């Protein structure tokens, strides 16, 4: 019988939010179609390092397993991506897993992304609904921008763009590409557009769109192929117009 092929994982671990990181290596039996989440599940079943030491299972987060929820975002071979759709066959081995340190690390590969939720609150990432309508009476989506709105609505706040962006992190107050571009989604909405000046003014605050440095990593990193840089440029345009209104309307 042929010898079982192994996949080597080098995992950056950390026992708690304030403890020092260290690395451990694990071997997982190769099988066709294996992805990073499935491999992590194998490690969880049998958390033994390559040195034969039994250790605490690696902690990570996952949910939908089909690149829709964004929960399993981690740094795989140096780049932020979803673990569930990272096939072992497409990765260079050994596979290095790290937590996305743009966010606070809770334990091992588990991170705290609540800052993105706070940012969505800041840019008013919702629509104020004043009552509801029968289907025929409801305001319609602009058919010319519906495609764009649909595209931006795919954002799953996974944080890939936040990890890739050099201007997001503990050293900066930038809210990041994803929450910024969400403002454009709600500005396109037939009811949300009434609050557009509020959102644009929020983007003018410290840590808003002015903190964007145009590295354009976000658009490369986005697993949902949202044209983030295009909408950031559009928002820059909108924010500049809003600034002129702020100056000359009062």
């Amino acid at each position, binding site marked *: 019988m042929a010898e079982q092929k192994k996949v080597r994982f080098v995992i950056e671990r950390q026992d708690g939010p304030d403890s020092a990181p260290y690395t451990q290596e694990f071997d997982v039996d190769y099988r066709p179609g294996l992805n990073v989440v499935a491999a992590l599940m194998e490690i969880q079943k049998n958390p033994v390092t390559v040195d034969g030491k039994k250790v605490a299972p690696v902690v990570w987060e996952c949910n939908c397993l089909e690149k829709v929820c964004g929960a399993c975002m981690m740094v795989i071979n140096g780049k932020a991506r979803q673990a569930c759709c990272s096939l072992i066959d497409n990765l260079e081995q050994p596979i290095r897993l790290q937590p996305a340190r743009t966010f606070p690390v809770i334990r091992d590969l588990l991170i705290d992304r609540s800052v993105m939720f706070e940012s969505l609150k800041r840019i008013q990432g919702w629509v104020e609904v004043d009552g509801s309508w029968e289907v025929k009476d409801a305001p319609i989506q602009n058919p010319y921008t519906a495609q764009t709105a649909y595209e931006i609505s795919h954002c799953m706040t996974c944080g890939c763009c936040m990890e890739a962006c050099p201007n997001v992190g503990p050293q900066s107050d930038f809210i990041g590409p994803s929450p910024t571009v969400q403002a454009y989604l709600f500005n396109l909405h037939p009811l949300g557009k009434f609050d557009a000046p509020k959102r644009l003014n929020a983007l*003018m605050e410290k840590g808003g769109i002015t903190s964007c440095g145009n590295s354009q990593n976000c658009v490369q990193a986005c697993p949902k192929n949202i044209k983030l840089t295009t909408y950031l440029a559009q928002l820059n345009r909108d924010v500049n117009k809003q600034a002129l209104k702020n100056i000359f309307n009062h």
Partner: protein
Amino acid sequence: MFHTTFYVRRLHSLVGLLALGMVLFEHIFTNSMALGGAPALNGALAMMELIPHPIFLGLEIGAIATPLLFHAIYGIYICLQAKNNPGRYGYVRNWQFALQRWTAWFLVVFLIWHVFYLRILTKGIAGVPISYELLQNYFVANPAYALLYIIGMFAAIFHFCNGITTFCMTWGIAKGPRVQNVVSALSMGLCAVLCLVTLAFMGSYFVM
């Protein structure tokens, strides 16, 4: 509601492109006169001396020193907000992003030295007018300084040309990826041309 950050950041962008871009072009234009030898460069410098002294000093302080200090000090603050990561995300624009910040750090040090030595020590305190002969003697006697000046010019030219690209993004002028690529290619073309001009006039001191 007055968004200080927004206006300061936009002013930083405008000052860099317009005021400091003008200073850079003036330097390249005047210094390129060295290609015509001593009479051409000294003639160009004499033309500038025709501007009455108080107006000239006012321009130096108002149109060069003030914008430069503002752009440099706020720029350092911007630099400190970035964790450059082109090693992990090696895309062209990310390298340009990192280079924009690395050239910025270099230029802060280089410009302090350049202004202090040539404008304050040589022209201001010692009262020696800047001339073709002065620059030629200086560069030929210290080729390392000439090299440092060439690197300083390259850094300033790249910082300015990449700044044109980011200006077009920041002001929402170039929105889509195609037009952004065109703007980026044009400004990098300008960068190459200005660097070649710099090499030519700096090299001319050594061959003439």
